């Protein structure tokens, strides 16, 4: 099958999207605590939900990553959201529903969900 210029442009866009999903430059970072304590508290399902929401909502520049134990095991699953300017928000006792709200309200609309943070 011959590729037209439009096809090539489409492929280029797809590829750029994939590269950005991996490197996540200029975007938000969602970091899930995946040490023993995090995993025992349900971090696997939170991580999966985060990835699926990011793909579903086409949030190209968002990176989802994992981190180790930060010493707050009783607060797990912990999710840290790092804004493009480097500001860090720590969410505690996160579940599937909370991560959905965090993505919609914090990542998409830019409003920190303060009732889920460690300060509240």
């Amino acid at each position, binding site marked *: 099958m011959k590729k037209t210029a439009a096809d090539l442009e489409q492929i280029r866009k797809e590829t750029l*999207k*994939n590269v950005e*999903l991996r490197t996540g430059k200029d975007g938000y970072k969602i970091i899930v605590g995946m*040490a*023993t304590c995090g995993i*025992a508290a349900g971090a696997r399902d939170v991580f*999966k939900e985060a990835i699926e929401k990011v*793909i579903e909502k086409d949030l190209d520049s968002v990176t*989802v990553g994992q981190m180790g*134990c930060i010493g707050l095991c009783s607060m797990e699953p912990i999710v840290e959201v790092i804004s493009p300017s480097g500001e860090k928000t720590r969410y505690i006792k996160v579940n599937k529903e909370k991560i959905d709200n965090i993505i919609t309200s914090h990542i998409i609309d830019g409003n920190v969900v303060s009732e889920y943070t460690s300060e509240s």
Partner: protein
Amino acid sequence: MREIALHILDIFYNSLQADSSLIKISIAVDTKKDLMEIKIIDNGKGMKKEFVNNVLDPFTTTRSTRNVGLGLSLFKASTNRCEGDLTIWSKEKVGTIVKAWYKYSHIDRQPLGNMRDTVYIMILTLGENNLIYSIKKDDESFVLDTRKIREEMGDGSPLTSPEIMGEIKMLLEEEEKKINIS
């Protein structure tokens, strides 16, 4: 941990943190021997001999070694409840082998749990490293090798791209239907 899959995920992160470039995970059930065996083999930096001797004891783990403290102890405890055990072999600059086994029919054994999501997340956090995941029950077996997937793609695109992850998910779902391990 509620599922054996979660123990496996936890030990996988030990391997990843030990700078492994290839991690092999195998789950094998032999119903005749009534045995379930799990192996996690990596080619990471390994551990010193005195460290390996203490690694299963949560109380001798020091702060600098806390990466491998409670995770392995919990895993071992879960096998010991089910007439099984956990052993570790490790050599510096060579790698580490963690082997755990359970009496398959033991009433206290946790379910294997959701390996589909577990492997999916492992692949998402692999980066440039590779995973060989194999699961076997008597004569039925399934192997997923990320090196082969990368080879088939041939264009160096990351495993984390949505299309490839979709394919991997489908593969894992099919496998789950075929091999039924409780």
